[in-house]
């Protein structure tokens, strides 16, 4: 007996409300547009790495700043997306793609940690009117997510918040975070929130809550060290003169 194809309404799944806010799944990350001054290293061809894939202790850190009643959460997030790079400290340069902070877009990062170069990036995993989340690739210092959001508290004040849920990606980073990296990272996100607040004419302190969600080290992921972006960036920087000479010889 001939089988009839199922009616379209039975096969097509209804798109949920959040469909437009999420990045599409890709096996390997691809950087489509690179600003001329940015170094695109340690992102292309890598997989995403979430809070489950790293090595170190898993921390949830929540940074908050009060912005008062003169601005809505939507306005805060709109400005935050637009000026994301400008709010970073000078040693932490972000290069968004031309499309900006939108689901699936890449943001290249050319940073310097205690004088050591780190060339990496993040993917915009989720973005709606009140928040956006970036996720790290393999080799990034951290493995996890950072969510940048704004909301109205019970008193009607707008609060800007950064929440990270991440662990160090490998043993080298874990050691670095325990020695100084963690404090340095807290300084970076505090700077970002202070810059955001300054844009709206607010000068308030930033609060920070830290929770160790998982104190265990994930020794099964010790091999992540192979992709360490910091080590690879250093090799790239040290070998720059050699690449220049090689380039001249090939002419």
């Amino acid at each position, binding site marked *: 007996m001939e089988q009839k194809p199922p009616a379209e309404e039975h096969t097509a*799944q209804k*798109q*949920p*409300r*959040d*469909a437009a*806010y*999420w*990045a*599409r*799944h*890709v096996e390997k990350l691809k950087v489509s547009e690179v600003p001329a001054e940015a170094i695109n290293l340690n992102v292309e061809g890598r*997989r*995403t*790495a*979430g*809070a*489950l*894939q790293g090595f170190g202790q*898993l921390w*949830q850190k929540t940074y908050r700043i009060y912005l008062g009643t003169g601005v809505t959460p939507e306005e805060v997030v709109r400005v935050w997306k637009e000026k994301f790079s400008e709010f970073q400290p000078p040693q932490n340069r972000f290069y968004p793609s031309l499309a900006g902070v939108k689901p699936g877009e890449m943001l290249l990062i050319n940073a310097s940690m205690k004088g050591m170069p780190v060339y990496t990036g993040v993917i915009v*995993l*989720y973005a*709606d009117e009140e*928040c956006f*989340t970036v*996720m790290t690739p393999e080799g990034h210092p951290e493995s996890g*997510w950072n*969510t940048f959001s704004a909301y109205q*508290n*019970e008193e009607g004040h707008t609060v800007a918040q950064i*929440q990270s*849920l991440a662990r160090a990606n490998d043993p080298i980073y874990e050691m670095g975070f325990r020695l100084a990296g963690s404090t340095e990272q807290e300084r970076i996100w505090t700077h970002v929130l202070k810059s955001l607040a300054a844009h709206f004419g607010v000068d308030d302190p930033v609060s920070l809550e830290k929770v160790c*969600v*998982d104190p265990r080290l994930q020794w099964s992921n010790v091999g992540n060290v192979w992709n360490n972006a910091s080590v690879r960036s250093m090799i790239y920087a040290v070998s720059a003169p050699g690449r220049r000479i090689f380039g001249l010889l090939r002419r």
Partner: protein
Amino acid sequence: MPQAQVTMDVRKVRDGVSVIDIKGELTAFAEGVLMSAYDEASDGGVRAIILNFEGLEYMNSSGIGLLVTLLIRVNREKQKLLTYGLSDHYRSIFQITRLDDAISIYDTETEALRAANKA
């Protein structure tokens, strides 16, 4: 503070296996509801928790964070976390966030129960 737009009903389907039926929105506001449901589901020496996502209507990135936190608790108790009923869209989110590395995904409750029994 907005209320959680979600309900989570717990069913003890077999000895050592509980199902949590998630209906509504999985966002940061669902944390209390999810953790209470987990406490109820894991009561009495449960070795596997199955999340039923057939009724999931909305999830943001905070929802993924909640699932990670739940998974850490489940692992600490030496239990297993499984899911079924994910639409293609939510399955894709599990893939990009790599939750699927740690949480087994099944199409139906029967398949999830079969896998839970092997746990």
